[in-house]
């Protein structure tokens, strides 16, 4: 292909990266040019983040060459990457929890200099305003929700004034509104001559903001759509093409399922999960006067901007955070004084959104992580003794059923890709008898096929008579699955609305504080 104009900022030639038992990137050729938003797509574990880590200097390729501005130059370290002008928002947070956002933003400046906290804070606020998010630069990172941290990382990356910006699933934690703003910004940056690499699992975003698409599959680049092609294709056709490249079939994720059918009247007699005037004292967003009922078979969506107390709510119900007043009933019995384990024994499940922090033990095998909440239970343990065969069989079964991509079930779970770790969590929580399940952002980080599968499983869970609480920042997901939707704002329930034609508008009003009901 004859090259017109300046050479690409980064050219990958036959770049290969191997990990024990897996070729994460297999001889990848790719060009990343100034002025383009280059969308990188691929299912979970396809090797996208691995590619990112090589571009940002965290990993070195085992084979192949990297050219910078047409000249071969290894990206030997993150410092080199930054020097070249490559700035990255990683899939998993790269902020120091014990520092404030401002301090995090000043990391990397000369040692002897005094941190310019005020100046940096002003710059951060300005940049945040530009992309339309609000953040408190003086906030201690550890007190922020994952979503807020992600916003801060985007702001920090943009502040560096890079000519090459990498966003690895940067919209995963954003509301559609904020994601759209970020998209607009990407377009603007591209028009100013910045190269953007954007990784997402949301095909609509890919098609809308991307100039060029590359698709990875099992570590190999299986195809792409060039800018001219993409422009000429139209959204519908482009999505279908991407799906074909990614999954080998084009009828995937076609059209979200309609709203769930209304519950039969008899289901509404006795609630499974009931919150009665629940209060919880938490440092930033205390819960106050939370009341709702969830019936058998019902899915109650919890919508709201990230960081409005959703996590506190989930933890209070699961027993991980203390309740200061009010009661929680499961199948009529009060459970608010019970331990986490006792609540679980009664059939309460909590799928956490913090998959690395508390969801899994990174150094333990996939097989053990799948049983983390059932240690000691037969048939995997008999009289307290491990039954390796049973544990393995269970893992192999889950691996198949949930399509967990791992070299082996003995691989430490921390070595899997983000999406595959999420599948391990889901596989663990969605089996066995359940009475009530709390899903906290269950599909974040999952690829299209897995999102569809997961949503089907959430529906199934409800269909088997369990009460489901679905916390999500994705309104579409909530509208697709929920019978009723509660909107959370500042630690309160701003209102609960049935999922009817007017739901989307009313949720929007509730979220923006326009109305209260």
């Amino acid at each position, binding site marked *: 292909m004859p090259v017109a104009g300046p050479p690409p900022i980064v050219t990958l030639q036959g770049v290969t990266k191997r990990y024990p038992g897996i070729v994460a990137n297999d001889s990848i050729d790719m060009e990343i040019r100034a002025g383009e938003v280059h969308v990188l797509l691929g299912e979970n574990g396809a090797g996208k983040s691995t590619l990112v880590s090589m571009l940002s200097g965290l990993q070195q390729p085992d084979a192949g060459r990297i050219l910078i501005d047409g000249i071969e130059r290894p990206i030997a370290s993150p410092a080199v990457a930054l020097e070249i002008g490559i700035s990255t928002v990683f899939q998993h947070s790269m902020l120091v929890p014990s520092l404030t956002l401002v301090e995090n933003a000043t990391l990397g400046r000369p040692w002897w200099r005094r941190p310019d906290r005020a100046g940096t804070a002003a710059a951060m606020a300005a940049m945040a305003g530009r992309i339309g998010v609000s953040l408190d630069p003086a906030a201690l990172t550890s007190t922020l929700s994952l979503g807020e941290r992600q916003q801060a990382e985007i702001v920090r990356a943009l502040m560096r004034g890079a000519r090459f910006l990498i966003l690895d699933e940067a919209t995963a934690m954003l509301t559609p509104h904020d994601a759209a703003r970020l998209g607009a910004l990407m377009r603007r940056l591209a028009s100013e001559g910045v190269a953007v690499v954007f990784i997402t699992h949301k095909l609509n975003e890919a098609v809308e903001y991307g100039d060029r698409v590359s698709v990875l599959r099992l570590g190999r680049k299986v195809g792409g759509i060039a800018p001219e092609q993409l422009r000429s294709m139209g959204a519908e056709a482009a999505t279908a093409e991407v799906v074909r490249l990614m999954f080998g079939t084009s009828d995937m994720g076609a059209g979200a399922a309609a709203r769930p059918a209304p519950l039969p009247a008899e289901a509404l007699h006795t609630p499974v999960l009931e919150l009665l005037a629940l209060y919880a004292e938490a440092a930033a967003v205390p819960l106050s006067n939370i009341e709702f009922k969830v019936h058998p078979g019902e899915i109650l969506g919890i919508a709201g901007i990230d960081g409005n107390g959703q996590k506190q709510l989930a933890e209070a119900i699961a027993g991980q955070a203390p309740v200061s007043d009010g009661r929680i009933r499961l199948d009529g019995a009060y459970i608010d004084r019970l331990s986490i384990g006792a609540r679980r024994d009664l059939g309460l499940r909590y799928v956490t959104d913090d998959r690395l922090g508390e969801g899994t033990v990174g150094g333990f095998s996939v097989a053990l992580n799948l049983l983390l909440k059932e240690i000691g239970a037969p048939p995997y343990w008999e009289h*307290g003794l491990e039954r390796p065969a049973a544990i393995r069989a269970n893992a192999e079964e889950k691996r198949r059923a949930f399509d967990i991509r791992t070299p082996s079930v003995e691989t430490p779970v921390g070595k899997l890709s983000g999406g595959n770790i999420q599948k391990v969590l889901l596989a663990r929580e969605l089996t066995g008898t359940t009475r009530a399940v709390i899903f906290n952002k269950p599909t974040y980080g999952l690829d299209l096929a897995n999102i569809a599968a997961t949503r089907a499983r959430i529906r199934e869970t409800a269909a088997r008579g369990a009460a489901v609480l679905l916390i999500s920042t994705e309104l579409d997901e909530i509208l697709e699955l929920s019978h009723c939707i509660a909107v959370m704002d500042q630690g309160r329930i701003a209102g609960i609305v049935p999922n009817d034609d007017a739901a989307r508008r009313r949720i929007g009003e509730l979220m923006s504080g326009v109305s209260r009901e």
Partner: protein
Amino acid sequence: MSETTSDIGDSRAAPSVLRREIWGVLAMSLGPVLAAFVLSGLILLLMQVNPFSYYGYVFGRGLFSPTGVQATLTRMGPLLLLAASLIVAFRAGIWNLGGDAQFLMGAVFAAAWTPLMVPHVPVWVALLAGMAVSAGFGALWGLVPAFLRAYQGLNEIITTLMMNFLGLSLASVLVKLVFLDPATTVPQTRTLAVEDRLPTLGATTISSGLLIGLVAVLAVHFVMTRTAFGLRLRVVGANAGAAVHAGLAVPALTVAVFAISAGFAGLSGGVAILGQYGNVRADWNPAYAMSVVPLVFLARFNGFAAIGFVALFSILSIGSESAARRMGVPNYFTLVTVAILLIVLGLAEYWGARQRQKAGA
């Protein structure tokens, strides 16, 4: 300080791989020992001492002489119990660095009460009771940091180190003021008669503490790697947040870990007294636990490897005292040898891990 142990998934290897592994393990364990001796041999040369004769004496005494090897095996007993103590704690992510005081508490109370019991009950009852007492008081001393960690979130490295200093003082206060043998001028407890001590193995002088220690390490290894209880502890150790999320009773498990760990340390003291020493003198502190800590880390909390390292350490400590005397080298040289050995073993571990990674890639 989370230590991700690699044998968690315990690979069930194929036979040929196994053979290669055994060779690897042999090379990995003997290689560094040789390298360490070459290095310390160079220092000996600087001191104008013949390294071959020196190490000849070390192994001649520590491993190949009949009384020497018996001394080595006897020395291993209490050390193995301490290894068991540390394996439990470290696998559960609890950095119990107070083993020496727990050891002494066990030793002092066993030494104080067993001789008093002997006249009234059959000897074996007194010995069993003495061991129970030592484990109990070791555990008791471990409970202070346990509760502080479990219910106040206090870091146990600080508290166990402090309890160590306090325990050393308390032990000597107890010996001097409370459990003093009225028959001597030297502040020490009553002495358990030689014939009332734990039986030796057959016609040797090897204390049966060795067997107790071996059983303890193997049992601990089994429990930690093959049982639900052990797995729970490992989850707490690897990621306390995940343990809470999984509904484990973290505070209770923490207390249990401390009790077991400190109990083994106390038992180690008891076995040392009941099997070898017969009494405790004021200000006595062999500081065995601090020597076992690096060995257990090198063994990566694996019981079998710990037995190997404890054996090596015992051979070295028994043998080098003899070698130092015969060669006219100050005994301090042993400290240098042990330091070099630990570093070289650490390097070998690093090298092995890199090889494994390369092989996997």
